[in-house]
């Protein structure tokens, strides 16, 4: 096993992992960051989306050693240090953008990546961008509403 050094949510991290360790396994099992979920483990559902150097990626389809030296942001790194929710999180809360909550970390990470590259998306653009995130509860309506609501507010740190 070899060491991996990377930045996770702004902090330098060193962890030991096998070659086959997935990024999502590193986050959940080695670093205790269980907010990133494993839904399908086949890169379909999007529950494991994190940001790698600012870009959305499915952490179940990325090897931990391949992000050596990268900056990874997970759902735990989205809110402010004092716990104040980011605008996108607040919007999910206000618009009831979740029911069981399992897909929510991935939804938030995908939505914040969208708003970072396109701060004022249309409804169609929001739906298209969330194509790789599956929700089995909400029917997506309130998720889309929440992303659109967040987009109309001043862009926050992660949204």
């Amino acid at each position, binding site marked *: 096993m070899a060491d991996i050094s990377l930045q996770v949510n702004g902090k330098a991290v060193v962890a030991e992992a096998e*070659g086959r360790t997935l990024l999502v396994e590193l986050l959940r099992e080695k670093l205790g960051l269980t907010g990133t979920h494993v839904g399908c483990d086949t890169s379909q559902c*999007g529950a494991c989306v994190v940001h790698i150097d600012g870009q959305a990626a499915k952490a179940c*389809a*990325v090897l931990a050693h391949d992000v050596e030296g990268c900056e990874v942001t997970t759902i735990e790194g989205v809110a402010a240090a004092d716990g104040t929710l980011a605008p996108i999180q607040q919007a999910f809360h206000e618009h009831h953008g979740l029911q069981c909550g399992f897909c929510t970390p991935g939804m938030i990470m995908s939505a914040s990546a969208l708003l970072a590259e396109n701060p004022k998306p249309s409804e169609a653009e929001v739906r298209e961008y969330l194509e790789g995130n599956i929700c089995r509860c909400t029917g997506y309506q309130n998720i889309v509403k929440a992303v659109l609501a967040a987009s109309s507010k001043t862009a926050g740190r992660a949204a």
Partner: protein
Amino acid sequence: MYEFDFVKPASLAEASAALETEDALPLGGGQTLIPAMKQRLAAPTVLVSLNAISELRGICVSEDGALCIGGGTTHAQVAAEAGAHYPALAELAARIGDPAVRNRGTLGGSLANNDPAACYPAAALASMARIRTNGREIAADDFFLGMFLTALEERELIVEVRFEPPNSANYQKFLQPASRFALVGVFVARYNDHVRVSVTGASESGVFRWREAEATLSTDFVPDALTGLDLSAEGMISDMHGPAEYRAHLVKVLTGRAVAQAA
């Protein structure tokens, strides 16, 4: 997934050397290979990540007008940067998988894998791409040998792909509703004196050129020119998502739509 040694060389030369090990495999964006390794369909002894090799990434236009895209360039980069020179290719890249997959998956990885339902092989074949590897250059017509089969030798890596941008082009993708792969995809490219039509998702032999349609459309580039053509269902993929006859029918319908868009 079985354990392997992970290496991440910084140059093409080092990557080639690392691939000398028996049962070593190169890793592009990993959006196909990692799921395949989880299913134990692939089990390399050494996995050679190409993601730190900067010479594999980037898009440029050559002096002879070809669009040159590094093998390690992600779908997201192609979608964002190729539009000015080859809009149909950028549009195709923008519809592969989903945004998170496009941020990782690469052009070279897609071509080397040659999934029978992948989008890029159709674009490469229709736009007379030349595939430059770490040893030679292969014309797209000689590159795709069948389902998941290419002319690449062991340890051969796709360094760059040179597309010939046509006068106009269009890609029509009929989505398999669950996987969002192409149930059938048709890429039509119109050049000064000829037209190329390539089809993905349909054939048991992988991507192919529909030469009858090419001949007809080269004379008369309108959807109606296809009316008299009949593509045989023989050799077409038949599965729970659509029988062979359905796929053959879709090829014709999508070709017509692509022509209407590109005309």
